């Protein structure tokens, strides 16, 4: 996997000869690199764009938001994918190289909290989630939240989480626990969003989190509020887009300078309904409500 990725990078470097958007045999190439959260969507977009404009190829590589942003600073990509904003330092470094990164929001990632359908819980505050999941957190049993769950005699909160380098894990940590706090050890660390939902579905004592699109009718999604007296917001595409749901983040693409030519056409297409349906299909929220066939 890694070797294949490395090989891909080498091939792309050879193709691009260190220059972004080169013309090769009449076929223009856009270099697109970055966030692993976005890489599946970016690949699906690139795949679909072949139909839209066969004369433009999109070379997509992952490696993480940091990788994409450093490539943007070094001027080797046309579009950098990121699941976080560029830091001030990174912006300065890019400007020092004569590149003015322009940010585009291409979608949203809302993390829903899942519990078993028999769980009577209405909603969680962010502080409660932090006490459940965070290192040193005090909440270990459902009765501490005033809940008794049918089928969960042991009262233990079975925490379902993700492996420690997934983007979902990192984002949940940032948004719920805060950057300085680690996860409590002993959570069941699943290897995919779907596994999280499957386990919660079959386990009355469980709580888990995952991208909104992984939800199904066998799990319950409680609302989340930022404080004790704040409004409790249910996860949905709408609440992710308007920013009222507290565990949602924008997914970004940075272009080197105001996009021009084929890059501009590609970005416009990404924000079109057709491309936004693809991102919705991949489990993320589109930038606006779209109706897909």
């Amino acid at each position: 996997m890694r070797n294949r990725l490395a090989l891909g990078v080498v091939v792309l470097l050879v193709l691009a000869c260190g220059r972004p958007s080169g013309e090769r045999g009449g076929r223009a190439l856009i270099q697109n690199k970055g966030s692993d959260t976005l890489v599946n969507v970016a690949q699906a977009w690139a795949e679909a764009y072949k139909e839209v404009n066969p004369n433009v190829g999109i070379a997509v590589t992952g490696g993480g938001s940091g990788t994409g942003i450093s490539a943007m600073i070094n001027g080797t990509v046309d579009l950098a994918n990121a699941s976080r904003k560029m830091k001030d330092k990174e912006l300065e470094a890019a400007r020092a190289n004569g590149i003015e990164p322009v940010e585009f929001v291409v979608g949203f990632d809302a993390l829903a909290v899942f519990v078993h359908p028999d769980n009577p819980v209405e909603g969680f505050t962010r502080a409660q989630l932090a006490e459940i999941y965070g290192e040193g957190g005090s909440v270990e049993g459902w009765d501490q939240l005033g809940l008794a769950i049918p089928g969960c005699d042991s009262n233990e909160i079975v925490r379902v989480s993700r492996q420690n380098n997934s983007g979902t894990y990192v984002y949940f940590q940032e948004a719920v626990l805060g950057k300085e706090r680690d996860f409590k050890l002993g959570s069941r660390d699943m290897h995919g969003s779907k596994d999280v939902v499957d386990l919660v579905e079959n386990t009355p004592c469980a709580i888990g989190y995952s991208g909104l699109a992984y939800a199904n009718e066998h799990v319950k999604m409680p609302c989340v509020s930022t404080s004790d007296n704040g409004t409790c917001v249910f996860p949905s595409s709408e609440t992710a887009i308007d920013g009222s749901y507290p565990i949602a983040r924008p997914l970004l693409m940075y272009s080197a300078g105001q996009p021009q030519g084929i890059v501009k056409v590609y970005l416009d297409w990404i924000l079109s309904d057709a491309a936004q349906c693809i991102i919705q299909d991949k489990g993320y929220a589109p930038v606006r409500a779209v109706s897909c066939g």
Partner: protein
Amino acid sequence: MPQASPRGGDAIDRRNLDWYIDKGVQVLVFIGGVSGILFVISIFVFITKEGLGFLTEQFSIGEFFGSPRWAPTSSHNPTYGALALIAGTASVTGLAMVIAVPFSLGAAIFIGEFATGKPREYLKVLVELLAAIPSVVWGFIGLSIMNPLIIKLFNVPVGLNVLNSGFILGLMAAPIMTTIAEDALKAVPDTYREAAEALGATRWQVILRVVIPAAKPGLLAAVLLGVGRGFGETMAVLMASGHSINLPTSVFDSVRALTATIAAELGETAVGSDHYRALFTLGIFLFVVTFVINLTADLVVRGIRRK
């Protein structure tokens, strides 16, 4: 040219197609023979090279073997305690052996000593067929069948635990153990059995007092190879154990295995980072443990042959 038999020498030395095929096959077989050694050495060199930076810089024996806190991605306090992972692997493998040893020794004794004719052949094939089931299928069974079953039977919060993965792993290790144990029983000369029966021993007495003691080293090797299989198994354990960093106190606790940790985390780790190198250190540890187990099993088997 030797003069004694010019015709014969001529036939041997003629470099026709057959001669080249012969040479070619010789070279191929030689490459096949030494490649095993080359692969083992280069794998060891590779994982050592990747993990060495960690071993010399961050590695502390006390933390690695003494702390259960495996938190390599923590931003302010990364720790690399493998104790919980080692305990996880050991507990799952241990339970697997508790289940697999009686099961596979029983199967080997039945196939080797009691069954005859067609049923014996069918049984042998069926047991070996068990070994052909892919480990991801075993993991799937653990996840989707064993998990709800354990929750229902034992009224525990979650069914992905030591019991689940130990049971699955036991079934996975049983075929190889049965096959090797049966070979060991078969290697006991029939004269032993005949002598015992001539003295009036019942069939059970023959097996318990004569055949099993005589086959002991082979049976031990079978068990050790089963342990090695358990230590190295990844996918099924990843899916059935719960993958939770935890020092288990009962069979109903979720655990995490060394192999599963590497499988789950290596894919998205930046090459050359501390986390990456720490995972390779886990790999070195696993390699050394399975190497020692397999070497011991091999020496034990050699011990029988020499006799």
